[in-house]
């Protein structure tokens, strides 16, 4: 308890020192003020967004909607394709080079293509983020199914499990344990996909706000946007940690194996 307070104290102090130095240097140098803005200005901007105009909510809502949609769709697709390929080795062997190529490709570059296909609305951002989430989930599911112990499988079969029982009671739980361990990364990736998509072309969203502000050299708004995105990412991560803790109660706390995180 004392230890924790001690840590908090130093963390807050560090933050205060940084903010103070930032504010001070922007007061004394117009260059710093132009290129880095100033914390008070950023704070003013945030207050205006959230409490005076209240126009951030619309943009934040769009970004979060994109994130959650992409996360849900990407996870579902990854789960389906991962289970299917892991359970039919022949299909996996055929698809292997294509999957490797698609995973190796820097997929952010697909954003302009998705903008052409799906327009400048929400769909093109979701599509981009899905391509990021899909592969993380897919590789983890694939590994999770492959890692099921042969004894466990044999035991389930001896107990009378059919194909569907095996899928539901053995393969899926095993795959899910890998998926949950990569949840932090896939939610983060969904967020990145959404924001990058917005930044490259959109009419709404926090990424769009940042792009607009950058166009008019409004550095304070850019920083304010970054602060909002960072806070959102932290909240998402906390939520994931909560969900994970609830659903993974069966797993021993220590001595867990390393999980694969592609990209």
């Amino acid at each position: 308890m004392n230890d924790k307070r001690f840590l908090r104290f130093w963390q807050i102090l560090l933050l205060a020192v940084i903010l103070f130095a930032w504010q001070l240097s922007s007061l004394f140098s117009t260059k710093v003020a132009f290129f880095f803005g100033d914390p008070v200005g950023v704070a003013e901007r945030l207050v205006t967004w959230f409490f005076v105009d209240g126009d951030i909510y619309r943009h934040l809502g769009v970004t979060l909607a994109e994130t959650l949609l992409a996360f849900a769709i990407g996870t579902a697709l990854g789960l389906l394709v991962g289970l299917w390929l892991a359970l039919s080795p022949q299909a996996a062997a055929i698809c292997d080079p294509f999957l490797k190529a698609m995973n190796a490709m820097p997929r952010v570059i697909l954003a302009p293509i998705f903008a052409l296909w799906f327009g400048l609305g929400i769909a093109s951002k979701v599509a981009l983020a899905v391509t990021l989430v899909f592969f993380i989930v897919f590789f983890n599911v694939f590994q999770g199914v492959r890692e099921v112990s042969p004894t466990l499988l044999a035991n389930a079969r001896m107990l009378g499990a059919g194909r569907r029982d095996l899928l539901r009671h053995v393969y899926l739980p095993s795959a899910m344990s890998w998926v949950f361990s990569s949840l932090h990364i896939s939610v983060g990736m969904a967020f990145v996909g959404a924001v990058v998509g917005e930044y490259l072309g959109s009419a709404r969203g926090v990424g769009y706000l940042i792009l607009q502000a950058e166009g008019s050299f409004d550095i304070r708004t850019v920083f304010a946007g970054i602060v909002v995105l960072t806070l959102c990412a932290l909240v998402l991560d906390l939520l994931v940690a909560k969900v994970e803790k609830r659903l993974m109660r069966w797993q021993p706390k220590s001595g867990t194996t390393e999980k694969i995180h592609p990209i």
Partner: protein
Amino acid sequence: MNSEPALLLSDITCTFVSRDNPGQRYTAVADTTLAVSSGEFVSVVGPTGCGKSTLLNIGAGLLEPSSGTVTVYGKKLDGINRQAGYMFQADALMPWKRAIDNVVAGLLFRGVDPAKARDRGLAWLARVGLTGFEDRYPHQLSGGMRKRVAMAQTLILDPDIILMDEPFSALDVQTRQLMENELLELWSEKRKAVLFITHDLDEAIALSDRVVVLSSGPATRPIGEFPIDLERPRDVTEIRGLPRFTELHARIWAVLRDEVLKGYVQHRNVPEE
């Protein structure tokens, strides 16, 4: 009752082909015939790595022999042996299921009503001495407790044939003897056919009606059969002190010792073929 043996392995040969190098073959079991009558407790002993588990997997229908047939109560086995329950050497509980859900898994696979299955599961947990532990996950149980759950999981299905692959080998001596006594008690209630694999001769004699000795691998085959005429009910800790036990042990060990030595030499050198 049926006069046919509960489980009959006849002229079983099992050859494994290396996946990377098809020219490389390993014959684990050769020309083996083994019968277990209903109500009989048969133990199979042999040196480590001699193909004991292979034999059991064939009896369970998990593995198809290269040649030979498996019959269950006179019927040829095709696919998984539905009349058999299998207790594995390694931990085979589903780690994501609580103890009770592991125990009733087989009942649910067989379409038993979940509420009824739960009642039977709780009764079985009580029988193996785990009342109050039903909501624990396997990682929250000790090794001995996990074996008890596995035993309940297998026996709740009331299989006609029980296959056991060194189920207690990972336990400490005290827990092991407790579990052996519990197994004998449960078995004596229903007298199922048991095929018990072990490398521990003491355990084999203490539990069984008959002990079969296997030769060392490759091409393992039975080389001796010894009826165990010790009285039942038995207590595995006390029985080890009886003169008859010592006598049987000496006779079987005389056969087994040579094979263990051979197996030891073979494992030090790389096996050919």
